[in-house]
């Protein structure tokens, strides 16, 4: 190897090539998604044409019009939005508190609590639906939006993720803050939280997605139309003897947009290398 340093131009070229390559790969990776989006513009009959085509021959917005007339679309959207947002905020708070304690304190039962946290991911919700329903009923949380906001807010994955991140924050920072007379809550609120922004942003994205896409909790909890969420309404498009594909596809694309927006808004928090510097303190 000749050790001449690569010129600026060559570096730029290389970057360009790399970018082109990864974008190409991503597009290939996304073929199924692209199909979903393009098909949402196809008239119903065209969905069944053989051989299936990628591009709509006669693009139409009819499916979107249909999607907006499914029941009370605005109500469902608001409910979903409210639930996803509030539940995510609660998750960020309670999960980070728990994660902080699990990462930075030594106390009796810590290991057990950590395992318990992990254990709660291990049981598929579908399986314990009946007891969950009984508990919610006894607490008067059935058919209430709070019944789908509070229980799933304690996401075990969130605790796990944040704990791992907080572990990488050096103890010296906390110690020096204690020297300066900071309270434990102050340490959590003024040091841990700001330093954990990348991890919190990641969790916010995940949590919003989970709650937005959630079917099982709303299915168990909600029974009235005024409190139904988008996913409950979407599931109804799958009938006993056939599926209303065109409306389903259009509605799916609509439901994807908020999550995409949240991702775009938050991604620079955790994907830029700049934040890494602040963690090292």
């Amino acid at each position: 190897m000749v050790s001449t340093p690569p010129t600026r131009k060559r570096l730029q070229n290389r970057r360009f090539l790399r970018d082109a390559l990864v974008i190409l790969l991503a597009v290939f990776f996304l073929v199924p998604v692209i199909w979903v989006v393009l098909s949402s513009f196809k008239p119903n009959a065209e969905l069944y044409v053989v051989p299936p085509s990628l591009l709509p021959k006669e693009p139409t917005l009819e499916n979107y019009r249909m999607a907006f007339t499914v029941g009370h679309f605005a109500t469902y959207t608001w409910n979903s939005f409210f639930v996803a947002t509030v539940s995510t905020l609660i998750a960020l708070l309670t999960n980070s508190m728990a994660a902080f304690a699990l990462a930075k304190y030594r106390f009796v039962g810590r290991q057990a609590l950590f395992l318990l946290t992990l254990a709660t991911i291990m049981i598929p919700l579908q399986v314990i639906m009946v007891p969950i329903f009984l508990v919610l009923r006894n607490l008067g949380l059935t058919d209430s939006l709070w019944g789908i906001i509070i229980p799933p807010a304690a996401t075990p994955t969130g605790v796990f993720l944040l704990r791992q991140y907080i572990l990488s924050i050096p103890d010296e920072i906390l110690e020096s803050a204690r020297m300066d007379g900071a309270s434990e809550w102050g340490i959590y609120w003024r040091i841990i939280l700001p330093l954990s922004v990348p991890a919190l942003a990641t969790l916010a994205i995940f949590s919003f997605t989970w709650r937005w896409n959630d079917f099982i909790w709303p299915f168990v909890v909600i029974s009235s139309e005024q409190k139904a969420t988008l996913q409950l309404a979407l599931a109804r498009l799958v009938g006993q003897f056939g599926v209303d594909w065109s409306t389903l596809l259009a509605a799916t694309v609509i439901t994807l947009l908020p999550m995409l927006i949240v991702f775009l808004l938050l991604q620079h928090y955790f994907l830029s290398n700049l934040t890494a510097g602040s963690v090292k303190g």
Partner: protein
Amino acid sequence: MGHKLGKLLTPYLFVAPNTLIFGIFVVLPMAYGLVYSFYRGNFIGGLQQFVGLGNYQQLLQDRAFLTSLSHTFVYVVLVVCLVVVLSLALAIALRATSLGTALARIGFYLPVILSPVVVGVAWRWMFSSDLGVINAVLSSLGQSPIPWLTDINWARAVVILASVWSMVGFYMVIFIGGLNTIPAELYQAAEVDGANPRQQFWQITLPLLTPTTLMVTILATINSFKAFEIILVLTNGGPGDATRLLVQNIYQTAFEGANPTYASAQSVVLFGILMLLTLVQLRISRED
């Protein structure tokens, strides 16, 4: 004295809200589930007869259960290996900041935000034997169609690929987060020492990424053990029971077979397996 007590209590206060929610809404129902597993009963009559370990004994001879269990093991091993390797590779390839990588990151993340039903439907559109795009392309090229979803082995392969596809973006994001906690100076120092990218990977990235890799492995293991919804749409467990995994079996036992107590016993077994695997994984990595 009071101060000391306060200090002792602090961590407990921090974990309290989360633990309370867990306790009421997940652990308590799980405990119910454990109790159910010792009974015979149904949705209408409730718990009817205490049978002790009867349900568990029955499991040992239940062919549907045992087959779905062995399918699940194979599925989990393959999916976890593929997911860990691919998501790490993607994270490394896309950690740099440029417009291209930013766009690609969004692209690879997108499947994560699709609901399982949509993932299943989109993959059916490609791989369906009679209506799928891939077979349409193959026959227009004069090739004979491939029985993607009607042949046992092909169907298993497609199911695994679809699962990996839907999960890989999630773990990529976690890996990128992990990569960003590695100090950049380490790489600069290594470059000064003349380490090539491959050496940098083996000597810096991988060792320092161990906690993240462990987390990804544990989460991916648990989540693929619970896989069910995508497969339900994609093959409905078919052909026959070739892609029927444990959770689908539990679900069908509980609701279609109207036998919730027997299903509870199966989920206790699932829980036991996952707990054991997680403990082993934590031990191997000597975490904590």
